C-alpha cells in the first residue's frame, strides 16, 4: 500500500515537473479556456449544438488547428453578436482580447504557411466585356443588349465561381463578336436595324432633365452608335393613357425638339387634342407622324430629345397634381388636371442610303496602316491584327496567334475588300476564348499545394479588371511585358495612376452599385397610393447621391468610415426638396453640408432607406438584417421553417385589425420564441431608423402613433435613433472595415472569400489602419496581398 502511494506520489510529482516549463506560457490559454467555458460552452456544446455549432471538442489554445470553425466564432465576436441578448458578457477589453488571441494564433500560422487560394478560370462578365470593347475598339455598346445578365454570388457579379458557361451564353458571345466587328469596321453592307430607347414610365417630364438643354423639359439623352455614314429614321412616341389617348393631349403650343451633338435638327409643333400621335391615327383625327429622316455621320453621337418648356408658372388646378406625373395616367386626360405630353420612346432605324464607312474613332483605332496597293495588303493586315490581338489577349502575341487570324482575313478578303478581311479576322479575335476568359496558368514543374506568384502579365490583367473592370491599357501592358510590374514601387505607382484615371469610375459604380444595393434601386417600386410623389427622377437622384458619396471617398482618398459619418452629401433640386434642404435649384448635383446630423452618411440616404423598405412601409427587419450582413459581415440565420402566420383577430379579418404601426408588428415577433432569438438582434437595429419612412423622408409619426426608436443592442447598450446606431457602428469599426475589405477583396480577386482568406483580409485591414483607413490604403493593401499576387497550385481532381 505504502508502495502504491509512493508510486502515485512520484507520478504526480513527475507529471507536475514535466509540465512546469510550460506553465508560464499556459496562463494565457487557460484564461481563454475559462472564458470559453463561462460564456460559450453552455450553448455550443456537444449536447445542445446551438446554431449547429459545438466548440466543446476544440482546443481554444490552438485555434489554428481548426481555423474554419474559429473563423465563424471570430465573425460573430467581431460584430459583438455573441453571447445573445440578455446573457452575461465579459467586459469589453476581455471580450476583444479573447477574439484577438484567437485571430493572432490563426494569423501566425497562416503567415508561416500562406494559402493564397486560386481564382477559377474567369469569364468576362457583361460589364467587363462592354468596357473591354470600349477600350479595344473605341465604341460604346450597351452590355444589356449584347449579353445576358450574369449570376452573382455574395452580392457580386464578377466572381469566377459563378461565371460559368452554357451553349446559350457562349452563343451570345459568338453573336456579339459578329455584331461588334461589323460596327467597328463600318461594314457598308449592313442591313437596317432598329434600336429603341425607352423612357421609364415613371419619369416625370414636367421639369428639366439632367443633361438636356436649359429651357427644356422632359425627354431623354441618348448615346447612339451609328454604324456608317447614312440616313437614319428617328421615330418618337408620346406616352399614352392605358386605352389609347395621348397623355397631356389638351396642352397647347407644345413643341418637340431633337438635336445631335448640340445642333438642333428638329423643332416640331405638336397638335393638341383631339389629335393622337398613334399609328394609323385614332380618336378625333390623324396627326402627322412624329418622325424625321436625317443623314448622320458614323460613330457615337449624343442625341437630345426634349420638349420646349412653355411656362414655369404654378398652374392653378382644380386638383393638386402629383410630383410623379405618371403615378395615375388618367390625370393625363381628365378634367381638373393640367398635364403636358411626355416622351415614351425614341426609335432609331437605319442606315438607309449608305454613304460610306465614315471616319470613326474605331476605324482610326483599327486601321493603324492603310495598304496603298494590293501588294501591301498582307503586311498591313498582319500589323493591324497583331496590334488588336495583343490588346485583346492582354499579352504579347506570336506567329501562332496571328496565323489563324490571317486565315480568316483571307476568307473575308476573298469575297470582299480589305476592310471585309479585317472585319472577319476581328470577329475571330472577339470570339476567341483568350479574349473572353482570363487565363492564369500554373508552372508545370510545381508540386501540388505549392504557391507561386502570378506572372507580370497575369498581374496586369488582375489590376485592370479590379480598378477599371476592363483590359490593361498600353502603359500597363508594356510595363508588364518588360517584367517591371512585380517591382513594388512600380506597382504602387500604377495603382495610383489607375485610380486617378476616369476609367476607375467603373470601380465606384460597380462596387458601390453592388455592395450598397444601388443596382437594386431600379427594381423598387414604392406603393403609389402611399408615395404618390415618388418617381424615377427621385430614384435616380438617390442612386447618384450614394454613388457620389462613395466616389468622394475614392477620389478624395478619404477615410472609409466617412461612408457612415460624412457630414456632407450631394443633392439636386429634387433631392434637396425631399430632404428639406433649402435654396438648391436645378438638376445638377452639388455638394452640401447635411442640414441635420441624422442625415449624415449612408444611414440618412434615400438609396439605403428605400432598398431596405417594403413597398408600403418601412421594414426594420430588412434594415437590421441588411446592416448586419453588408456592413458588419454577420448575416442573421435564415428564418426557421413553417413560421406560423401572425395570429388572427377573433373576427377573422387578419392582422391589419389588431396591429397598427410597424413597431407593433416588430414587438409581435420579438415576443414569440422561434423568432425572438434573431429578431431581438435585428429589430432594435432597424428600429433606430424608424424616423425615416419607406422612401427616406423624416417623420415623427407612423400611422398616428409617435415614432419610438428605443431598443437594446445585442451587446447590452441602449439604442435610440440613428445617432446611437452610428455610435454603435463605430464601436464595431473593426467589423465594418473588415467587411468592406472582405467584399473589396472578393471583388478584386474575382472569387468568393473562404476561411483561409481571413488572415490576409485582417492583414489588409491592419495595413489600411496604419494609413488612416484611406481608400487608397485599402486598395494598395489588397494589391499587395497574397490572394491578389499569388496562386496555390491545386491538386489534380479526381472525377
Amino acid at each position, binding site marked *: 500500500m505504502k508502495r502504491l502511494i509512493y508510486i502515485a506520489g512520484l507520478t504526480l510529482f513527475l507529471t507536475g515537473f514535466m509540465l512546469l516549463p510550460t506553465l508560464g506560457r499556459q496562463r494565457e490559454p487557460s484564461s481563454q479556456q475559462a472564458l470559453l467555458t463561462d460564456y460559450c460552452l453552455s450553448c455550443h456544446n456537444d449536447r445542445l449544438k446551438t446554431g449547429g455549432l459545438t466548440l466543446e471538442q476544440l482546443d481554444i489554445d490552438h485555434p489554428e488547428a481548426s481555423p474554419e470553425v474559429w473563423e465563424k466564432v471570430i465573425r460573430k465576436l467581431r460584430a459583438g453578436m455573441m453571447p445573445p441578448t440578455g446573457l452575461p458578457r465579459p467586459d469589453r477589453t476581455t471580450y476583444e482580447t479573447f477574439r484577438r488571441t484567437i485571430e493572432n494564433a490563426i494569423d501566425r500560422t497562416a503567415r508561416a504557411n500562406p494559402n493564397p487560394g486560386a481564382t477559377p*478560370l474567369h469569364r468576362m462578365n457583361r460589364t467587363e466585356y462592354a468596357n473591354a470593347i470600349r477600350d479595344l475598339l473605341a465604341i460604346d455598346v450597351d452590355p444589356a443588349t449584347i449579353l445576358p445578365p450574369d449570376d452573382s454570388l455574395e452580392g457580386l457579379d464578377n466572381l469566377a465561381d*459563378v461565371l460559368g458557361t452554357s451553349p446559350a451564353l457562349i*452563343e451570345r458571345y459568338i453573336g456579339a463578336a*459578329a455584331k461588334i466587328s461589323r460596327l467597328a469596321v463600318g461594314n457598308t453592307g449592313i*442591313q437596317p436595324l432598329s434600336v429603341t430607347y425607352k423612357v421609364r414610365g415613371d419619369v416625370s417630364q414636367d421639369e428639366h432633365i439632367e443633361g438636356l438643354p436649359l429651357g427644356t423639359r422632359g425627354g431623354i439623352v441618348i448615346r447612339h452608335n451609328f454604324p456608317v455614314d447614312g440616313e437614319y429614321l428617328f421615330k418618337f412616341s408620346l406616352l399614352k393613357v392605358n386605352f389609347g389617348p395621348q397623355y397631356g393631349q389638351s396642352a397647347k403650343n407644345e413643341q418637340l425638339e431633337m438635336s445631335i451633338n448640340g445642333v438642333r435638327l428638329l423643332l416640331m409643333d405638336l397638335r393638341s387634342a383631339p389629335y393622337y400621335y398613334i399609328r394609323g391615327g385614332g380618336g378625333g383625327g390623324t396627326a402627322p407622324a412624329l418622325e424625321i429622316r436625317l443623314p448622320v455621320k458614323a460613330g457615337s453621337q449624343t442625341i437630345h430629345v426634349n420638349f420646349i418648356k412653355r411656362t414655369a408658372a404654378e398652374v392653378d388646378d382644380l386638383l393638386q397634381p402629383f410630383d410623379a406625373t405618371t403615378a395615375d395616367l388618367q390625370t393625363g386626360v381628365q378634367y381638373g388636371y393640367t398635364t403636358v405630353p411626355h416622351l415614351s420612346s425614341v426609335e432609331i432605324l437605319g442606315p438607309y442610303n449608305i454613304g460610306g464607312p465614315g471616319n470613326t474613332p474605331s476605324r482610326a483605332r483599327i486601321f493603324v496602316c492603310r495598304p496603298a496597293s494590293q501588294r501591301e495588303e498582307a503586311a498591313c493586315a498582319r500589323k493591324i491584327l497583331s496590334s488588336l490581338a495583343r490588346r485583346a489577349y492582354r499579352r504579347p502575341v506570336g506567329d501562332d496567334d496571328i496565323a489563324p487570324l490571317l486565315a480568316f482575313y483571307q476568307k473575308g478578303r476573298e469575297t470582299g475588300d480589305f476592310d471585309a478581311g479585317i472585319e472577319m479576322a476581328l470577329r475571330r479575335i472577339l470570339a476567341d476564348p483568350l479574349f473572353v476568359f482570363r487565363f492564369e496558368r500554373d508552372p508545370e514543374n510545381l508540386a501540388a499545394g505549392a504557391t507561386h506568384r502570378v506572372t507580370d502579365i497575369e498581374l496586369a490583367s488582375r489590376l485592370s479588371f479590379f480598378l477599371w473592370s476592363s483590359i490593361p491599357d498600353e502603359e500597363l501592358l508594356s510595363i508588364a511585358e518588360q517584367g517591371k510590374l512585380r517591382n513594388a514601387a512600380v506597382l504602387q505607382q500604377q495603382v495610383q495612376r489607375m485610380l486617378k484615371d476616369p476609367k476607375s469610375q467603373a470601380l465606384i459604380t460597380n462596387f458601390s452599385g453592388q455592395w450598397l444595393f444601388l*443596382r437594386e434601386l431600379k427594381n423598387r417600386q414604392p*406603393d403609389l397610393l402611399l408615395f404618390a410623389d415618388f418617381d424615377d427622377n427621385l430614384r435616380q437622384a438617390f442612386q447618384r447621391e450614394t454613388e457620389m458619396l462613395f466616389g468622394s471617398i475614392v477620389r478624395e482618398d478619404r477615410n472609409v468610415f466617412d461612408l457612415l459619418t460624412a457630414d456632407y452629401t450631394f443633392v439636386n433640386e429634387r433631392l434637396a426638396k425631399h430632404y428639406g434642404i433649402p435654396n438648391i435649384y436645378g438638376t445638377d448635383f452639388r455638394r452640401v453640408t447635411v442640414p441635420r446630423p441624422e442625415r449624415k452618411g449612408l444611414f440618412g440616404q434615400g438609396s439605403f432607406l428605400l432598398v431596405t423598405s*417594403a413597398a408600403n412601409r418601412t421594414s426594420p427587419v430588412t434594415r437590421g438584417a441588411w446592416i448586419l450582413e453588408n456592413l458588419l459581415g454577420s448575416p442573421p440565420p*435564415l428564418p426557421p421553417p413553417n413560421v406560423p402566420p401572425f395570429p388572427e383577430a377573433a373576427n377573422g379579418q387578419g392582422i391589419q385589425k389588431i396591429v397598427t404601426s410597424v413597431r407593433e408588428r416588430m414587438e409581435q415577433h420579438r415576443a414569440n420564441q422561434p423568432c425572438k432569438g434573431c429578431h431581438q438582434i435585428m429589430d432594435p437595429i432597424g428600429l433606430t431608423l424608424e424616423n425615416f419612412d419607406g422612401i427616406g423622408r423624416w417623420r415623427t409619426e407612423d400611422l398616428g402613433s409617435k415614432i419610438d426608436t428605443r431598443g437594446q443592442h445585442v451587446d447590452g447598450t441602449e439604442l435610440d435613433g440613428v445617432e446611437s446606431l452610428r455610435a454603435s457602428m463605430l464601436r464595431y469599426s473593426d467589423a465594418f472595415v473588415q467587411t468592406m475589405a472582405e467584399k473589396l477583396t472578393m471583388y478584386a480577386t474575382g472569387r468568393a472569400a473562404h476561411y483561409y482568406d481571413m488572415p490576409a483580409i485582417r492583414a489588409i485591414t491592419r495595413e489600411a489602419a496604419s494609413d488612416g483607413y484611406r481608400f487608397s490604403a485599402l486598395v494598395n493593401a489588397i494589391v499587395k496581398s497574397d490572394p491578389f499576387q499569388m496562386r496555390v497550385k491545386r491538386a489534380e481532381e479526381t472525377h
Partner: protein
Amino acid sequence: MFITKKHLSRRTFLRGAGVTLALPFLESMVPAQTALKGTAALPKTRLGCFYVPHGATMYKWTPATEGKNFEMSEILSPLEKYRNHMTVVSNLRHQSATGADAGAEHARSAALFLSGASPQKNGVRVGTTVDQIAAAEIGQDTPLPSIELAIEDVSLSCGAGYGCAYFNTISWKTPTVPLPMENSPQVVFEKLFGDGGTAEQRLQRKREDRSILDSIRQQTSDLMRGLPASDRTRMDGYLDDIREIERRIRTAEAQAGANQDVPDAPVGTPETFDVHIKLMFDLLAIAYKSEITRVATLMYAKDLSPSTYPESGNRSGFHGASHHANAKSNMDNFALINKYHVSAFAYFIDKLATTPDGDGTLLDHSMILYGSSMSNGNQHDHEPLPIVLLGGAGGTLEGNRHLIASQHTPMSNLLLGMLDKLGVRKESFGDSTGPLTI
C-alpha cells in the same frame, strides 16, 4: 438475333456520326419490339413548363369534384374552352422545400419547381430539371434543344445566402449549370431565327460562325496547357458548349430550306405584362410549330416580385398580395391575380389549339405544365400545389380530368410521369417515390 430493349438516341447517334446533316431514321433508334409511338426516336410532343411564384388561393383553384367532367373552378375558368385537353392534378407537394435546410422559402421555390431537389445554400447546386432531361432526349434534333423565357428582369441581390441563380431561372442543365432566362422578345427572336435581315444573310452568318467555332476547337490543346485541373474541367465544358453550338448551326442549316413564316422582329421590351407575355407566347408558338425547339420554360414572375397586374382588378403588388394573412377578403383578392395569370395562359393555349400540326393541332401534340411550387403563399406552404397540365401529349393524355393524388404525393412523381409521356424512361427523379400515372 439477340433482342434487347437497348436503343440509340439521336444524340448518341450524332456524337458517333460527327458531321451529319439530315437525320436519317434508323431502325437502331427504335427499341427492339416496341411500337413506334412513344419511342425516343419519334416524339413530336412539345413540352412547356410555366412557373408562377407565390402560390394561389387554393379554395378557388381546386375543382370541387374529382375525375371526368369535373366542376370547373373559379381561377381555372379561363381554360374552360380547352377542358378536353386539361388535366388538373391536385394534392401534390414539394417536399424538398422543407427538409433540413428549410427556411428562405422564396429563395428556393423557383429552383426546386422542376428539379424536386433542395438548392444548396452558399453555392450553386440543385438538380437537373425535368425540361433539360427532356431536352436531352427530344430536343437534340431541333436547332434549339430548349428555350428559357422570362417576363421580369433578373435580380442581382437575392437573399438568405442563396445565389441569384435560384431566383432567376427554373431551368438547370446540370445540377450546377443554371440556364439564364431571357426576357427581351428581341433577343428571343434572334435566338430563334438568327442574326440578319434576310434568310439568306442569316444562313451566311451561320456558316461563318461555324468556321470560327471550328477554328477555336483547333487551338484547344494550346489553351489547356498549364491550366489547373479544375480550370481544365471548365474549359472542357466550354468546348462542349462550342460543339453544341456547331451542332445547332448544322441543324439550322439543314432546316433552312423549310418554309417558315417568320414574323417581324419585335423591338425592345414591352412595357406592360399583358403585351409582353402575349408576345413571348406568340414567339413560342411559332418556335413550337416550326420545331425550332420543342422544350420551353417560362417564368411569369420571380419570387418576391412586387409586380402589379391592374387588369386583374387587384392593384397590390404580387408578393404583398400573397401574404393575405389568411383573411378571406384578401385571399379572394389574391385569387383575382391568379385568375388573371391563368387567362394569359389561356391565350397561349388558344394559339396552340388553333395551329394545325400534323394530323391534329399543336395542342394535341403538346404537354404544358402550369403552376407554382407554393400553395398558400401566406405561410409558404408547399402542399397542396396548384398544378394543371394542358395538351394531349400526342394522344397520351386523356384530358377533361381532375386527378387527386394521394396525400403527400411528391410533385417529382408527376414530373417523372410527364417524362414517361415523352418517352423518357427514368427510374427516379428528384425526391420521387415512383411515377404518377396521368
